[in-house]
């Protein structure tokens, strides 16, 4: 019994240290990779506590390894948008300009009931009120109503960390050429962008890296 007590205490502090090291957010906001790590950690930690024949190291080593790998991967995702897209996916617009993208819903394995439920959770009970709905990488749905947006889609992120996003630009009916032209007019190079948002009407906002704190 004393062994179980000591093991439980050691693993308790190890898990606290591990979660602190990962810098986790709330459970509901976990990215897919973070959710996997959390489930694995909770499972691995119980093994040496329940089974006294297992050496403590068989619990400690995988926990430390998984946490370190998670930190390395999250650092990589911070540095590269491509890796971020690969690991966490990207937000998907399931309703744009008030129109539902049925093929995307199918691709996301989102049923109409799931969509309606997600809208209700955002206090939207009439789908015709929705101007834009986005499924975030965490699986949560963000909604912008026609009333809030005055009948036009809100600005989209079309560039970040020195990179333009062709997919986002085409979603607002523009292309990279247009974005570069706008950047040139602002006296800003593509690699200097920190955030660039734009909307269908052609209005855009650029925040340069040098303007950040």
């Amino acid at each position, binding site marked *: 019994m004393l062994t179980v007590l000591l093991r439980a205490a050691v693993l308790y502090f190890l898990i606290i240290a591990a979660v602190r090291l990962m*810098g986790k957010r709330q459970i509901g906001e976990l990215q897919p990779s973070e959710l996997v790590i959390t489930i694995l950690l909770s499972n691995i930690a119980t093994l040496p506590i329940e089974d*006294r*024949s297992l*050496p403590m190291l068989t619990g400690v*080593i995988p926990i430390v*390894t998984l946490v*370190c790998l998670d*930190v390395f991967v999250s650092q990589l995702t911070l540095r590269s948008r491509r890796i971020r897209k690969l690991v966490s996916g990207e937000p998907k617009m399931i309703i744009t300009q008030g129109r539902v993208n049925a093929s995307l819903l199918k691709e996301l394995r989102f049923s109409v009931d799931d969509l309606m439920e997600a809208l209700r959770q955002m206090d939207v009970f009439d789908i015709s009120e929705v101007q834009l709905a986005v499924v975030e990488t965490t699986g949560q749905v963000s909604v912008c109503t026609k009333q809030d947006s005055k009948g036009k889609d809100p600005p989209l992120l079309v560039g970040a960390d020195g990179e333009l996003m062709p997919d986002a630009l085409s979603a607002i009916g523009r292309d990279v050429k247009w974005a570069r032209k706008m950047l040139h007019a602002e006296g800003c190079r593509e690699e200097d962008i920190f955030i660039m948002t734009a909307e269908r009407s052609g209005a855009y906002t650029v925040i340069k890296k040098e303007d950040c704190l």
Partner: protein
Amino acid sequence: MKRLVICGLLMAVVAFVSLYARHSVLDRSESLCDMTDAVLAAYREPDTALARLDELERRWSSVRRQLGFFVRTDRLEEISCRVARLKAMYTDGSDDFAAECLELEERLRLLIV
């Protein structure tokens, strides 16, 4: 950046412990296998066989605790029982002594798996 450095250090420690564990188990199991071989070779010489058996018992009791950090204890307990049985089997002149030695050797080899 600080977090990255801590993780790098932790990974280095984990890699070191893992390699040390592998080396340690391999080294100890090989030396115990050699000792079991020596017991088997001295099977027909009463004086040396008993001395070898004592040596094996002593070595096992010193190694068992160290191996407990890396190997499941139920596997170690199984080997402890077999080592303890050997001496009694030898003094009783059991026909199964050689088979028991070979089984012990196999279990020691399996420690690394």
